[in-house]
């Protein structure tokens, strides 16, 4: 155990810009590092990355940065990325490896922890490191998020975790913060990567369907206008998200009748229900066993919806609508 040191934050770059989740994770790792006396090392992987990218993550709180950049790095080649991290980890022996949580990083984390036969904690909502035992402990969702499970690592290093970082704040960028940036040369051909990427592109999409959609957006009357409704509907539909309206929104003619969500209109059964511009939930789930997760955008943090939601943001709909649409379009570019 002595030989494993430092907290790693894995930063995978799709284009040469860091993801907001990467930056947030660096900040979170910083807090953990300060708590247990470890360096925080960022591991950057991608194309066209240079020393400045490393420096940027140091400004957000990392102590060191390893920059692995090559024309031949393909982030769609999950095996390649996983093996790059494995190789470096074998050399540097980090104590903890942290990823921002998503389907892709979970797969990589599974691979890495398998190779090292170490503990893996995924979807961590709250992560702690026991400063004496040096074991990870986390709260994570269990049973489709109906409950929380508190899990603790018991064996193996490096301990690997993926963290649901969206609800954490972006750390401050300290332009004067400095640290060490190490460019790393990895011979990609010697990694033994057996996967060949033949094609990359846009997925074939299906029409968003009220019953089958995984994500549904319910728009309320406070969205302001029919045009606003149409705008968000169009952007969301591209991501197979079903968009509909609450009863009040239909009554005020902001949302067309056929888009009404509820027993009197379209019934839904999503994994995630997003509401915007409304203070009430459409009564959609009576009789359906599934309980959707709720992400609500409310105007005031004391609203009942904010209390019951899994995620909430406080904003007037008109202040955030265009930004949301822009971000959704970014996803599908």
């Amino acid at each position: 155990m002595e030989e494993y040191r430092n907290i790693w934050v894995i930063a995978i770059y799709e284009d040469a810009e860091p993801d907001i989740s990467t930056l947030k994770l660096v900040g979170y790792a910083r807090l953990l590092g300060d708590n247990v006396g470890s360096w925080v090392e960022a591991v950057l992987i991608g194309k066209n990355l240079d020393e400045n990218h490393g420096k940027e993550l140091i400004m957000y709180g990392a102590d060191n940065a390893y920059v692995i950049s090559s024309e031949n790095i393909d982030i769609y080649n999950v095996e390649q990325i996983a093996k790059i991290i494995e190789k470096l980890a074998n050399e540097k022996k980090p104590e903890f490896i942290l990823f921002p949580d998503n389907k892709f990083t979970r797969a990589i984390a599974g691979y890495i922890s398998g190779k090292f036969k170490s503990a893996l904690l995924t979807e961590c909502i709250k992560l702690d490191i026991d400063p004496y035992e040096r074991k990870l402990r986390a709260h994570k969702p269990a049973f489709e998020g109906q409950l929380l499970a508190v899990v603790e690592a018991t064996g193996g290093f490096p301990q690997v975790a993926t963290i649901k970082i969206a609800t954490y704040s972006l750390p401050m960028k300290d332009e004067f913060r400095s640290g060490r940036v190490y460019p790393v040369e990895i011979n990609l051909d010697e990694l033994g990567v057996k996967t060949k990427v033949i094609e990359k592109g846009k997925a074939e999409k299906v029409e968003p369907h009220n019953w089958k959609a995984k994500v549904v957006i319910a728009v309320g009357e406070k969205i302001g206008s029919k045009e606003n409704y149409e705008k968000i509907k169009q952007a969301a539909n591209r991501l197979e998200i079903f968009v509909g309206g609450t009863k009040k929104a239909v009554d005020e003619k902001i949302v067309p009748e056929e888009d009404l969500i509820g027993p009197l209109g379209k019934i839904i059964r999503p994994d995630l229900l997003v509401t915007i511009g409304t203070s009430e939930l459409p009564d959609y789930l009576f009789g359906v066993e599934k309980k959707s997760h709720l992400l609500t955008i409310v105007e005031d943090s004391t609203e009942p919806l904010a209390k019951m939601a899994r995620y909430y943001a406080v904003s007037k709909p008109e202040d955030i609508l265009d930004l949301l649409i822009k971000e959704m379009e970014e996803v599908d570019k």
Partner: protein
Amino acid sequence: MPIEFSLPPEAKLAKKVAKRFVENELYPIEEEMDKYFKENPRDLIEKAAKMGLMGVSIPKEYGGAGLGEIGYCAVMEEIGGFSSSFATIVGAHLGLGTTALYLFGNEEQRKKYLPKLTKGEWIAAFGLTEDQAGSDASNITTTAKREGDEWVLNGRKIFITNGDIADIVIIFAMTDKALGAGGISAFIVETDTPGFSVGSHFRKMGIRGSATVELILEDVRVPKENLLGELNRGFIYGLVTLDGGRTTVSCGAVGAARRILNYLIEYANIAKRKGIPMSHYQTIQWAVAEIGAEVRAGKFFAYHTAKLIDEYFEKIAKRKPVPRPFRELVTRDSALSKMYCSELASRAIEKVMRLVGAYGYLEGYTLERAFRDSIISEIYEGTNEIQRYVAGRELIRRGRWFE
């Protein structure tokens, strides 16, 4: 484990899968089917056929899944729990039409028709009821006259489920008027036979997803090979088939009552008045207990009868003699269980309707549809009044209760 109450593992698995099927496929289209009288949803029937639901009870050698009446009832409990319409479609096809053909057909008839029926490639219907012959089924006026190698059928049948999509219908016709009920025979009629047509479509209070139609037979010529079973024995065949069909109605009703009970419990936990959840109120608690007791009792009764029918049908299909006491027990219990289970479901729905207030009355909230759907179980497959008559009379004749 309760006394003598465990389904064979295959039936349990079938039940579980049927439940999932029904929740995924029926839930999203229930409202539409009911609101717009969308009868006989094609996709749904095809999916059900692929799953083997259309022949679940028929033995494997004829293309069925061989799960018997027990498996059939287990599956019908789940289907009936969700959609009386769909349960009616399946019941008329499998429980009545196909089962009649299986029980009373000869090998040629079985081999000719059952493989297609069990796979749902062909749909069956049961043509017994007529305008003046509902409860008094012996009063039918459809006739069948022998002419050379054919029978010529003339008459009108009414309230026939699946009549418009059926490929074959078991038609009951008078072959010897002088013998009354003892002069009725059953025929396998292929619906593309000239002279056979579908008449009026009836718009109903409930089970709007199933089609209930009039059938018209005008000089319909049926080969002599299509006489089902023996001449003039048709009436008995009808009664026996209905004994089985009735049991699936019982199970479906129990399923419906169970769904309503869960609905009430969910409502009780979620709905609040002045911050107090409805579950706090005694009226609700009592109703839950009362319906719970009936669901429990009804389920035992329905499955007990299913087991009896399973044995009964096995004997009949294998042409083994059926001891009279056993036959009387089956008839009595199928009558009583149908009467009891269909009524317990209606009682449950009415109770819940009164407790959930206005929402129970509104379109889209399941309950008013369940209310409209439930009463048919008390009427079809032999009205509950007839069931009372049959069972009551039998018990009185015997002089005491019998097991």
